[in-house]
């Protein structure tokens, strides 16, 4: 029995708390992705904005629909649905039919997160689950890359955006190849400045290396993400591709190309670092990150697809429970 002074709270210690909260982390992530998003919209025009909005809408609507009524408002503002939708949107090609983007958002949250039991329970990165679904279902639409609109074409959109559900989208002569596609199928490299600034074809949010890097550094400095994961992913990818490059410079891409092409930066800073789907301990994080870096290069160079980031992360997501099992912290005073 407690006999308590009426004015006093009896709340167990500790009373001190560091400032960072999970919600704040998600807000920071959204904030760090804003420049990349704007750059994508600038580069690919109005269409990019529509694709991103469609995918966010799909994600948030699903989150809202399946939340218990009394938690709905809280879940909408907790940012996790918006974040998933935005991350998915950034990995989509700008000319994708909007209904596909919307469906991708629905699958991301529904199958990527909710059926596992909600925030914190899922095994795979939700945005990548949505993307994998889209790639498997609409391989054509997902690999048709448009040339950039950059400024002058800002208000023109791709007609394919408005394809009706379940109809073949119509593509006109805007399609081109991504730097990775050029490398894979034509052994043709792309100039580094173009890669860094984003003057290439690709997914909406993956082309502008500089902004991705800046946002990532911001997150690392704010301690929102574990620095070991981007460091491990990028280092191992660079070293592995550097070794290959040293063996045969004409055949294999150089390490800088590896780092700045495709979705590697976006994935290393914003997707692989998702705490829910990466290992718990620092040692586990290193194993996880190095695994992703190696798999990315392996798939890109020896696999059938030009890009392997998505599969690399999903594979390592699947390995996370195993990594966690073998990297439990060693108890103090126990060898």
């Amino acid at each position: 029995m407690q006999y308590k002074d009426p004015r006093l709270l009896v709340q167990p210690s500790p009373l001190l708390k560091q400032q960072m909260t999970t919600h704040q982390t998600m807000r920071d992530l959204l904030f760090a992705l804003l420049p990349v998003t704007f750059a994508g919209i600038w580069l690919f025009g109005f269409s990019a904005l529509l694709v991103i909005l469609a995918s966010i809408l799909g994600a948030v609507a699903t989150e809202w629909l399946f939340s218990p009524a009394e938690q709905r408002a809280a879940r909408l503002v907790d940012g996790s649905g918006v974040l998933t939708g935005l991350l998915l949107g950034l990995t989509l090609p700008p000319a994708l039919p909007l209904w596909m983007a919307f469906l991708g958002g629905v699958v991301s949250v529904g199958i990527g997160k909710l059926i596992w039991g909600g925030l914190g329970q899922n095994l795979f990165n939700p945005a990548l689950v949505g993307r994998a679904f889209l790639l498997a279902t609409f391989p054509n639409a997902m690999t048709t890359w448009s040339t950039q609109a950059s400024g002058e074409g800002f208000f023109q959109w791709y007609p394919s955006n408005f394809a009706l559900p379940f109809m073949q989208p119509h593509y006109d002569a805007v399609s081109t190849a991504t730097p990775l596609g050029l490398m894979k199928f034509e052994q043709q490299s792309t100039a580094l400045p173009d890669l860094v600034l984003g003057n290439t074809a690709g997914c909406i949010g993956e082309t502008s290396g500089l902004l991705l890097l800046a946002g990532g550094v911001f997150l690392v400095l704010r301690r929102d993400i574990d620095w070991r994961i981007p460091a491990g992913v990028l280092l191992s990818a660079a070293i592995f591709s550097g070794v290959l490059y040293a063996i045969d410079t004409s055949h294999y891409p150089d390490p800088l190309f590896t780092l700045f092409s495709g979705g590697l930066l976006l994935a290393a800073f914003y997707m692989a670092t998702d705490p829910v789907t990466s290992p718990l301990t620092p040692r586990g994080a290193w194993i996880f990150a190095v695994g992703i870096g190696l798999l990315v290069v392996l798939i890109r160079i020896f696999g059938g697809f030009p890009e392997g980031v998505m599969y690399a992360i999903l594979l390592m997501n699947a390995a996370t429970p195993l990594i966690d099992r073998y990297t439990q912290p060693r108890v103090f005073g126990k060898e």
Partner: protein
Amino acid sequence: MLALSTLFKHSFSHGIHPDEYKDQTAALPTQRMPFVERYILPLHQHLGAPSKPLVEAGQQVRRGQVIAGPGAFVSTSLHSPVSGRVKAIGQRRFPGGRYEQAIEIEADLYATQRLEVDRPPDWRGLSLDDFVSVMQGTGIVGLGGASLPVHVKYSLRKGVKIKHLIANGAECEPYLTNDHRVMVERPAALLKGIEILHTLLGAEKSIIGIELNKPDAIASLGERIPSGQPFRVAPLRVKYPQGDSKMMIKSLLNIEIPKGLHAADLGIIMNNVSTIVAIADYFDTGMPYIDRMVTVSGPGIEYPANLIVPLGTPVREVLRFCGGLKAETKEVLMGGPMMGTPIASLDAPIIKSSSGILAFTAQQTARPKEVPCIRCGRCVEACPYFLNPSKLARLAKARQFDKIKQANVAECVECGSCTYSCPSGIPIVQLIRGAKSEMRGKRGKA
């Protein structure tokens, strides 16, 4: 580079860096709290068996007179902090809120309150065994938090040889400055105490570990160490929980005490600096443990202070002496903000382990809304005992007591670093404490 490597050597892995909040009181000289009308002395304010009362209601007692004797070997004595009259022996409030058997003494407000005690024995003539029995009569307990009667620590198993004596002056809990003031104001007594213990134990080295945020204490002790004595002051990195005994041993000697063993098994004995000063004071004047240093601080306190308070003084009186609680005070803690106990009733007394009385406002007591664990691993990186707090919390919530035992819950020292770092607002250490007390089948610390 050298400085960097020494810094790293003098610390342990993991841990946290909470704001210190020590400025309010760190420079305030210690004051003596005046005598009040009523004292409450719970019989069970140390680890082990409760003390047995040796006085009766109505009896006159002197300041320093023994009023309860040890109830077992692991138990200690209790002395009257004032001259006065035993008013009653009965159930009184303990800081945690529950009622406990206690001796209530009504002070004689016109008495001189001079300490009248027997001359202490000369420590030079004592063997370690003599020392142990003398200590049990002084009521001194470890003041670092656990309140283990001091004689228990010094009754070594056969064959144990102590090499290192460590004086723990880390005081890593935010807000508290009582150990700091003791080291600044009474360096000679501390060094005297170390000399006594060092000699009695036949130790090889004695080390005073002090966090770097107390440069005045480090300097004043460093200057006074007599030449030729194998004593030294070791500055330590400011990090919580640097004052945890196993962490401090790791920091100072780079020894990781194996699981299941005690420091003494490796030839190390550690005591808090205030405990050592209390021992020195006893051998100087014969004063038993009747006064303690208390830091009164926190945003809810009008006039923060470092006080010498007679044991048994009601918390209400201590707060009144410091100008009372501010209106916006929400919670009062006894001890530090990380590991302290919430005070349920201001009638509860200062006990031997009350290192601080801290008053907090809504800013500190507000808890963030709890959201699911996002497996970010911050608690894992904070836990100084290399446990997996997120797992312990999950198992505690699910009441899977077998699994939580396998996950080494017994090693958890309840330092609270995990709860401090969790961005999802999960009360990890609170869940662990709950599970532990349920597993013991006893009531918790409340």
